[in-house]
């Protein structure tokens, strides 16, 4: 049996067992029957083992480079360093689905042990999701329709046309062929950790969803919240870090010029995080005071549906041209859409059926209560999620309604402008949130408590706005509110919670979010492209209307001013598939001399098959980063066609070339003295020229004409490489007393140069710090809840 067959067997078992598990668990819950429960358990365990088996099989196939399999052939090759073996695994849709189902299995197995009383409906929902996901990995043709794409398929089965290629005539072709290799953009350590992390974040959304559906199925509209709560905050932590990890990836190693480009794929991962945060906060209100059950179910189920939607957007190929990192269409659009629609409809139908029986929550919340403003925050997050989704969905809307909407070229400004007001309100609410009390707040003590933070934030905001010359009132408002969110929560934690870790999770997560917004604001609004052209070549004459003027041209060894630095391009170094460009940064010291500060090596990755990729190189300071990447570099030495001319001249004549002139001033009858290669028997004569270049600088040239052993003639040419001139002495015409020369003149080579972009991002470390603090806060809340149990 081949390894591919083993993989296929695992796939079929996993698929069938997920169906069994779904049905058995569902019946176990309906009929309250232990036989079904046992069947469900066995099926889910079988399913889990099969999924783990699939992952192991594919991993072994990639590890051993079985290029006779399509997936392995498509995503790896022999050149690829071992460390990227994981990247190959999840470069394709099949592999990433497989990792996703793997995480679902891990979560399912944890729940299996801990779920207590909710096992049957929760695992039934998880199995249903697995059933749909595994159908994407089947690759079987049923009723003339191909379901999914199977990573264990042989290359020749996927590509019957290849069998005509000569390489496949060899019986042992499996040993001869090489794979196509990993996209150079993805040969990067971020590609090793980011996809599984984000997929794990996506996977966590299944747990609250499964509990919500279980609650609806059982008619227990409130009881499900308690076990789902910790899972939701766990998901918030994982997905939040995962999303920003994508940002860090883009920033560190892609030449997009920033950490967030509002790319559809980035948006698709951010949106479910926003609704997940909303859902988590509604659950908190529910636990304390009770909240509208409808909103609770809505936000929990929509989070899962948005995760499915994200998967649809990236994997269906619908984004096509609009995103840099979506997958290629594998013909699964229909299937992905069915899966998405199924879970949306399931949620809507179950909510609609149960709606009449939802416990009413008639009590009017006070406008000074914490629960009211938490509810408002959740709604605001939902609106923000909707606004981002709407523009992101233009390609889908175009497909559905035949419109031709496209996001504007000012996409980043467009989103920033829309999201900033939401960021202001959210950060303001999260600053005051903890100072408000459940049910009703005494406003006098509220103002008293918050005044210190408010005063402090105002002072810092005003001072830093002046220092940064920030003029835009909206940005100043966000500067103030994000500072307030940070200081107020720190204050609350230190003074009211006495700095204890117990129940500090909310404060810490909110401090993190405040810092994150602060970092985003400062690094985005204060970022500055410093690579404006300061070379001698004036580009303004070409019309300034459109001139982006964002790139600097650096000739080798010229020193130019760029921002606070003097920069100089020192040369390049090729290493494997990379060309590293050495750019030195200097600053004048006290005595006015330029002193080297640091050197950056932005580089190009060469890949003849998939295209060359420029990757950035960044100088990190505590308070700012200098981010640089190559925009353009001449890869081949481009020497223009050389001009060859023959001249017949006499002694004392002048020959003109394109860039110089040379005077034939004397004949050297005894060149033997000067040229070691000649023997006594050679009859040699040298023609001495003085050449003047464009700067009227004189150069000496002496080509030789040699008769060796009086039999055959040869020439010893002379050249001036800097000017690209080469002259050979071809013969003597005694009758006319003229001498024949051939002059080869190459266009003078330009110095090597690069076109580079450099951006300063101030305060970007605040962003990363905020992300980590927020993640810690989320995980802390999970840990505290587990401990309390």
């Amino acid at each position, binding site marked *: 049996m081949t390894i591919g067959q083993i993989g296929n067997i695992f796939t079929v078992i996993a698929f069938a067992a997920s169906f069994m598990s779904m049905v058995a668990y569902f019946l176990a819950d309906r009929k309250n029957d232990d036989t079904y429960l046992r069947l469900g358990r066995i099926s889910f365990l079988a399913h889990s083992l099969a999924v783990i088996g699939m992952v192991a099989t594919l991993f072994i196939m990639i590890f051993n480079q079985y290029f006779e399999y399509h997936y392995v052939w498509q995503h790896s090759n022999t050149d690829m360093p071992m460390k990227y073996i994981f990247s190959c695994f999840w470069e394709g849709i099949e592999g990433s689905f497989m990792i996703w189902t793997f995480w679902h299995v891990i979560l399912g197995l944890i729940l299996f042990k801990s779920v207590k009383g909710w096992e049957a409906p929760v695992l039934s929902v998880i199995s249903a999701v697995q059933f749909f996901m595994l159908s994407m990995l089947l690759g079987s043709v049923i009723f003339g329709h191909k379901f999914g794409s199977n990573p264990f398929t042989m290359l020749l089965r996927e590509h019957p046309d290849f069998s005509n290629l000569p390489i*496949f005539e060899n019986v042992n072709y499996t040993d001869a*062929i090489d794979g196509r290799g990993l996209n150079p953009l993805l040969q990067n350590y971020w590609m090793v950790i980011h996809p599984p992390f984000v997929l794990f974040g996506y996977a966590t959304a299944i747990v609250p969803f499964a509990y919500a559906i279980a609650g609806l199925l059982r008619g227990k509209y409130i009881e499900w919240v308690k076990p789902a709560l910790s899972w939701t905050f766990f998901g918030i932590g994982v997905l939040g870090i995962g999303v920003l990890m994508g940002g860090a990836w883009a920033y560190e190693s892609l030449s997009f010029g920033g950490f967030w480009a509002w790319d559809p794929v980035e948006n698709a991962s951010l949106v479910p995080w926003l609704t997940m945060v909303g859902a988590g906060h509604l659950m908190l209100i529910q636990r304390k005071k009770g909240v509208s059950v409808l909103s609770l179910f809505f936000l929990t189920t929509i989070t899962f549906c948005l995760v499915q939607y994200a998967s649809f957007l990236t994997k269906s190929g619908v984004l096509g041209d609009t995103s840099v990192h979506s997958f290629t269409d594998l013909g699964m659009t229909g299937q992905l859409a069915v899966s998405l629609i199924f879970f949306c409809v399931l949620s809507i139908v179950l909510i609609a059926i149960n709606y009449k029986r939802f416990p009413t929550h008639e009590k009017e919340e006070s406008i000074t209560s914490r629960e009211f403003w938490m509810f408002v925050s959740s709604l605001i997050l939902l609106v923000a999620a909707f606004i981002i989704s709407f523009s992101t969905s233009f390609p889908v809307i175009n497909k559905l309604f035949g419109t031709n909407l496209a996001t504007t070229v000012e996409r980043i400004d467009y989103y920033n402008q829309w999201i900033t007001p939401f960021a202001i309100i959210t950060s303001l609410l999260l600053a005051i949130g903890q100072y408000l009390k459940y049910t009703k707040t005494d406003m006098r003590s509220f103002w008293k408590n918050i005044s210190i933070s408010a005063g402090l934030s105002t002072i810092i905001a005003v001072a830093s706005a002046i220092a940064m010359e920030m003029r835009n009132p909206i940005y100043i408002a966000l500067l103030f509110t994000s500072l307030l969110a940070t200081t107020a929560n720190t204050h609350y934690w230190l003074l009211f919670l006495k700095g204890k870790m117990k129940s500090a999770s909310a404060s810490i997560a909110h401090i993190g979010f405040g810092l994150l917004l602060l970092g985003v604001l400062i690094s985005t609004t204060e970022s500055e492209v410093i690579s404006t052209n300061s070379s001698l*070549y004036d580009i303004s004459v070409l019309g300034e209307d459109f001139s982006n003027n964002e790139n600097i041209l650096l000739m080798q060894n010229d020193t130019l001013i760029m921002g606070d630095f003097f920069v100089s391009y020192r040369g390049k170094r090729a290493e494997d598939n990379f060309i590293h460009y050495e750019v030195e940064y200097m600053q004048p010291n006290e005595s006015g001399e330029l002193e080297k500060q640091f050197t950056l090596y932005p580089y190009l990755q060469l890949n003849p098959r998939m295209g060359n990729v420029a990757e950035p190189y960044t100088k990190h300071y505590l308070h700012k980063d200098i981010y640089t990447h190559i925009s353009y570099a001449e890869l081949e030495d481009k020497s223009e066609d050389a001009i060859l001319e023959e001249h017949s001249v006499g002694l004392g004549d002048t020959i003109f070339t394109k860039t110089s002139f040379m005077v034939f001033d004397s004949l050297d009858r005894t060149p033997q003295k000067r040229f070691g290669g000649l023997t006594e028997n050679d009859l040699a004569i040298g023609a001495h020229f003085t050449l003047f270049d464009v700067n009227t600088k004189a150069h000496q040239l002496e080509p030789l004409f040699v008769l060796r052993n009086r039999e055959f003639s040869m020439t010893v040419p002379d050249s001036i490489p800097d000017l690209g001139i080469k002259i050979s002495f071809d013969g003597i015409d005694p009758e006319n007393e003229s001498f024949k020369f051939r002059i080869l003149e190459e266009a003078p080579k330009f110095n090597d140069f690069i*076109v580079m972009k450099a951006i300063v991002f101030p305060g970007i470390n605040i962003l990363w710090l905020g992300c980590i603090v927020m993640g810690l806060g989320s995980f802390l809340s999970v840990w505290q809840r587990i401990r309390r149990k």
Partner: protein
Amino acid sequence: MKKSHIALIIVIAVLIGAMITAINDSSSYANFAEAFANPTDEFHVVGQLNREKEMIYDPLTNPDEFVFYMYDINNEEHKVVLHKSKPQDFERSEQIVLIGQAQGDAFHANEILMKCPSKYTEGEVTAKAESNS
């Protein structure tokens, strides 16, 4: 009326406002004919590079200008001025999406998206290098 209802109404109002603005602010896909008919509007134009004609990129004079000729989907050809540096591997592009507007006789693009064929098709099979086989 409950306060949460008021909040909901405000939310819906914001949503409708957002949708309308989003559509108004959006650009749209078009061909050259439409783009040149509305020189003030921004368009996305999809097309293919004309490989016969010259491509001018002279970073020594302006690293942020690249000129080439492109056919749109109706096979209409126009000069394109891209106000960016020449993209890596531009010659290999199979399909180009330009974002910008028409001005004078040329389409001025601020942004470009490219599809390179090898990323999307799988035509060839290579043999392992000698040392590995």
